[in-house]
C-alpha cells in the first residue's frame, strides 16, 4: 500500500515532516555532487559525523551530503544552517575546528570564508558571495538544502505539491494551457516550445504514449543536468509525472548516461521512494491516474542525445537518428507519440504549475522565458554552475559571476552550445543570452555549456577539437556527416600541424555548406558551426597558421618551440629533473639548455619553471636562439662571492 493516497494526506504528511524538524537546529550541509566528491567531500562528511559524535552533538546536529550548489571551483562546499555560513575548500582536517568554533561556540572560522580577490572582503553567508549574488537560482537553489537520497527533504520544501495541484485541481488541458502560456522552451538545445510539443502528442490518436527525460548530457564541458539529477532528482520526476498526466502517458523513461554513476544511483533511488510514497504506481494520490518510470542507462554515444537516436537506443538498438518526416511527438518510441524533454525542462514544470505561467514569464526576454543554467568552465576564475534569468549579458555572466579570466590573461572568446555551437568574440559580449540571440551570432544555446577561452587558446585548434569530437561521434548513417567531417578534420589537422595550404579554407567552407544542407539529423547539420564561427570571427588565426606557419596563441605543438632564456635561468634544475625525455642539459650553477633535437614539446619545463624566474620561453615561427657558448654557462652567485 502506498503511504500517501490523496492531496490532503500529502499535506498532512508534509506537516508531520516539518513538525519533526526544527528550522533553528544546526545542520551541516556538505555538497556531495561529483565535483566536490572528487575534491574529497566524502571524507569531509565522514569527518563531520565522527567529530560531531565525539563531541556528543549527534542528537542536536544533523549532517548531510546534499546536491551541488554549483560553486565547484571552491569545493568541497560546506554550509552551516541555520546561519547559512558558507565554508569553501574544506578538508577533513578543518572539521574539528568548525565543530568546535562554529557549532559549539557560534563563531565563524574566518580562514575558510570566501575572499573577494578584488576587494579582499570576506563573505560569511552564501548569499553574500558575488558568484551567487548575481544569480537567480529557481532550480539550483534547493540543491544545497536537499539530501537527494531522502525524499522527506524534498517534501519539506513543498515537493510534490505541484503534482497534487495538477491531479486534483486542474484538468490535463489546463496544465497544458499553463505550460503553453509560460512559453517554456526546450533546454536541451533547439529551444522548441515544450507546450506545443506536448499538445502534438496529446492530440495524436495512437496509444500508448510516452514521456522521456533526456539526461544523455553528452556536450563536453556541460554538467548542469547531472547536477540536477544528482542533487534534486524528485523535481525532475515530479515534472515528468505531470507531463505524463497532461499528454495521457502512463509510462516514462529516464535516459541517463552511464558516465554519471551517481546520477543513475540517485534517480533510481528517487523512483523507488516515490513508488513507496505513492507518487508513482496506480491511482496516484487517489486521482485514478497511473504512471510508472524506468531508468535506461546510455552506453556512451553522443548521438544518442538526439531525440530520435535516443528513442532508437531505448528500444535496445544501435542509436542512429531517424528521418523526422513525422515528428517524434507523433511517432516516436516504438512508433508511438513520445514527448522527449531535457532534464532542466522537466525540472521547470513543477515551478510553472505551482506558481503559474504569469510568474514564470516575469523572468527572461521577449522570446526566451525563465532562467537557464549554464556551466561556466574553461579559463575562468569561478568555475561552476550558474543559473541566471534569460537576457543577462554574456559580459555579466563571465565577469560579475565568473570573476573573469584568471592569471591576468586576456579574454579571447566564449564557446556556447557544445559541439553544435560556436565561439563568440569579445566584441559581442554585450549580447543578452537567449535562444534567438545566440543563434543570430552563429552560435546557439545548446544545453548550456559556456567555455571561456583566453589568449592561450588557439581557435583553429578549438575548431579541430570539435570536428574531431564529432567525427568520432558521428553515427555513420549519412554521408555528409560521416565523410564530410572526416575530410574537414584532415584539413584542419594539417593546418594545425603547419601543413595548411592556400585553398584549404574554401574547401572547408564547401564541406560545411554540404553538411549543413544535406545531413540527416540536427547534429550533422550543426556540425560545421564550430569551424564557421571561428572562421568568421578569427579568420586571421587561420591565415597565420596557413601562410606564416605561426600559431598566434602558441598552442599548436608542431608550430611552437621552447628555449631557455640564459639571462633569466637560475639553474635551479627543476625543469631538467622533470623533463620526461632528458632533453635539458644543465647542472648546479650551470645555465640550462634545451636540446631541440630531443625536445618533444610537451611543455613540462614551461609549466614547472618557477614563475619568479619565468626562464622557459615559448615561441612560434621565430628562430630559436642558438645555445649560449659553454664557457658562459656558469652562474656566479653574488652571495657566494667572498
Amino acid at each position, binding site marked *: 500500500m502506498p503511504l500517501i493516497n490523496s492531496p490532503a494526506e500529502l499535506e498532512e504528511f508534509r506537516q508531520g515532516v516539518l513538525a519533526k524538524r526544527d528550522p533553528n537546529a544546526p545542520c551541516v550541509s556538505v555538497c556531495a555532487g561529483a565535483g566536490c566528491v572528487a575534491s574529497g567531500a566524502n571524507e569531509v562528511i565522514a569527518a563531520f559525523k565522527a567529530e560531531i559524535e565525539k563531541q556528543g552533538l549527534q542528537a542536536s546536529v544533523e549532517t548531510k551530503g546534499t546536491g551541488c550548489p554549483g560553486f*565547484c571551483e571552491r569545493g568541497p562546499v560546506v554550509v552551516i544552517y541555520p546561519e547559512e555560513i558558507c565554508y569553501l575548500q574544506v578538508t577533513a582536517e578543518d572539521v574539528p575546528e568548525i565543530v568546535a568554533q562554529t557549532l559549539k561556540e557560534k563563531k565563524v572560522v574566518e580562514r575558510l570564508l570566501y575572499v573577494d580577490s578584488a576587494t579582499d572582503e570576506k563573505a560569511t553567508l552564501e548569499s553574500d558571495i558575488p558568484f551567487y549574488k548575481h544569480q537567480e537560482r529557481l532550480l539550483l537553489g534547493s540543491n544545497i538544502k536537499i539530501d537527494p537520497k531522502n525524499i522527506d527533504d524534498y517534501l519539506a520544501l513543498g515537493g510534490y505539491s505541484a503534482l497534487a495541484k495538477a491531479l486534483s485541481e486542474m484538468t490535463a488541458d489546463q496544465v497544458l494551457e499553463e505550460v503553453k502560456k509560460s512559453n517554456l522552451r526546450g533546454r536541451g538545445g533547439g529551444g522548441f516550445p515544450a507546450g506545443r510539443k506536448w499538445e502534438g502528442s496529446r492530440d495524436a490518436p495512437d496509444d500508448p504514449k510516452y514521456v522521456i527525460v533526456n539526461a544523455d548530457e553528452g556536450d563536453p564541458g556541460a554538467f548542469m543536468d547531472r547536477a540536477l539529477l544528482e542533487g534534486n532528482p524528485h523535481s525532475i520526476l515530479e515534472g515528468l509525472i505531470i507531463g505524463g498526466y497532461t499528454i495521457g502517458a502512463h509510462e516514462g523513461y529516464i535516459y541517463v548516461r552511464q558516465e554519471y554513476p551517481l546520477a543513475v544511483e540517485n534517480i533510481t533511488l528517487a523512483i523507488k521512494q516515490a513508488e513507496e510514497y505513492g507518487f508513482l504506481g496506480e491511482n496516484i494520490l487517489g486521482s485514478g491516474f497511473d504512471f510508472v518510470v524506468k531508468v*535506461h542507462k546510455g552506453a556512451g554515444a553522443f548521438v544518442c542525445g538526439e531525440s530520435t537516436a535516443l528513442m532508437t537506443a531505448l528500444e*535496445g538498438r544501435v542509436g542512429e537518428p531517424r528521418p523526422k518526416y513525422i515528428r517524434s511527438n507523433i511517432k516516436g518510441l516504438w512508433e508511438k507519440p513520445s514527448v522527449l524533454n531535457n532534464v532542466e525542462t522537466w525540472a521547470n514544470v513543477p515551478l510553472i504549475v505551482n506558481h503559474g505561467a504569469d510568474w514564470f514569464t516575469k523572468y527572461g526576454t521577449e522570446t526566451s522565458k525563465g532562467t537557464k543554467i549554464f556551466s561556466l*568552465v574553461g579559463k575562468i576564475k569561478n*568555475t561552476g554552475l550558474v543559473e541566471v534569468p534569460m537576457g543577462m549579458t554574456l559580459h555579466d555572466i563571465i565577469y560579475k559571476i565568473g570573476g573573469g579570466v584568471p592569471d591576468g590573461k586576456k579574454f579571447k572568446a566564449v564557446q556556447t552550445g557544445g559541439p553544435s555551437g560556436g565561439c563568440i568574440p569579445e566584441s559581442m559580449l554585450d549580447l543578452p543570452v537567449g535562444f534567438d540571440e545566440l543563434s543570430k551570432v552563429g552560435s546557439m544555446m545548446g544545453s548550456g555549456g559556456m567555455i571561456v577561452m583566453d589568449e592561450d587558446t588557439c581557435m583553429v585548434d578549438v575548431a579541430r577539437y*570539435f570536428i574531431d569530437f564529432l567525427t568520432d561521434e558521428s553515427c555513420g548513417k549519412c554521408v555528409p556527416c560521416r565523410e564530410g567531417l572526416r575530410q574537414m578534420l584532415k584539413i584542419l589537422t594539417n593546418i594545425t600541424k603547419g601543413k595548411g595550404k592556400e585553398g584549404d579554407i574554401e574547401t572547408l567552407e564547401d564541406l560545411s555548406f554540404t553538411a549543413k544542407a544535406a545531413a540527416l539529423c540536427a547534429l550533422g547539420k550543426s556540425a560545421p558551426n564550430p569551424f564557421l564561427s571561428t572562421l568568421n570571427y578569427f579568420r586571421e588565426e587561420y591565415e597565420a597558421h596557413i601562410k606564416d606557419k605561426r600559431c598566434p596563441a602558441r598552442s599548436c605543438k608542431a608550430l611552437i618551440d621552447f628555449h631557455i632564456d640564459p639571462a633569466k635561468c637560475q639553474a635551479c634544475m627543476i625543469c631538467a629533473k622533470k623533463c*620526461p625525455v632528458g632533453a635539458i642539459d644543465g647542472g648546479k650553477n650551470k645555465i640550462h639548455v634545451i636540446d631541440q633535437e630531443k625536445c618533444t614539446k*610537451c611543455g613540462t619545463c614551461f609549466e614547472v619553471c618557477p614563475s619568479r624566474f619565468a626562464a622557459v620561453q615559448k615561441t612560434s615561427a621565430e628562430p630559436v636562439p642558438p645555445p649560449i657558448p659553454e664557457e658562459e654557462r656558469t652562474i656566479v652567485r653574488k652571495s657566494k662571492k667572498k
Partner: protein
Amino acid sequence: MDNERIDQIIDKHHGEASSLIQVLLDIQSENHWLPKEALEKVSERLQVPLARIQHIATFYKAFSLVPKGRHEIHVCLGTACHVRGAPRILDTVQDLTGIKPGETDLDLKFSLETVNCLGCCALGPVVEIDGKTHGKMGTSKAADMLKSYD
C-alpha cells in the same frame, strides 16, 4: 564470467530484448569486457541475433571486446579540460604507458581510454583511474601519479 551470473543479470531485466543494452552494460561493469561466450549466451537468451549484439557492442563507447588491464585510465578530453591542456596530459600518459587510447599493455597493467567529459570541469584537466577522479593535472603530476599504481 560464469553462465549462472549472466542468467541472473538477464533475469533482473526480465529477459526482454529491449533491455539488451542494459544487460550488456551490467556484464561490462562486472567483468570489464564482453567475452564472445557471454555474448552468445545473451544472444540465445534474449533471442537477438549475434550480429546485432556485435553491432551494439562496437557502436557504444562503454563496451570492450578485449580484456582490460588492472587499472583503467580515463583521460578527459572535454572542452573545458582541452582548453586547460588535456592533450598534453594525454601525450604524457601515452608516452609513459606505451599505449594509445583503446589499448591495453602486454602486462595487463593499464588500459587507456579517452572520455568526452566527466563533468568535473572545475577540476580540469581531469584523469580518472579506476573510478577515482584526479583533478588539476599537469604533465609532471600525471607522471608521478602513474608511478603509484602497480
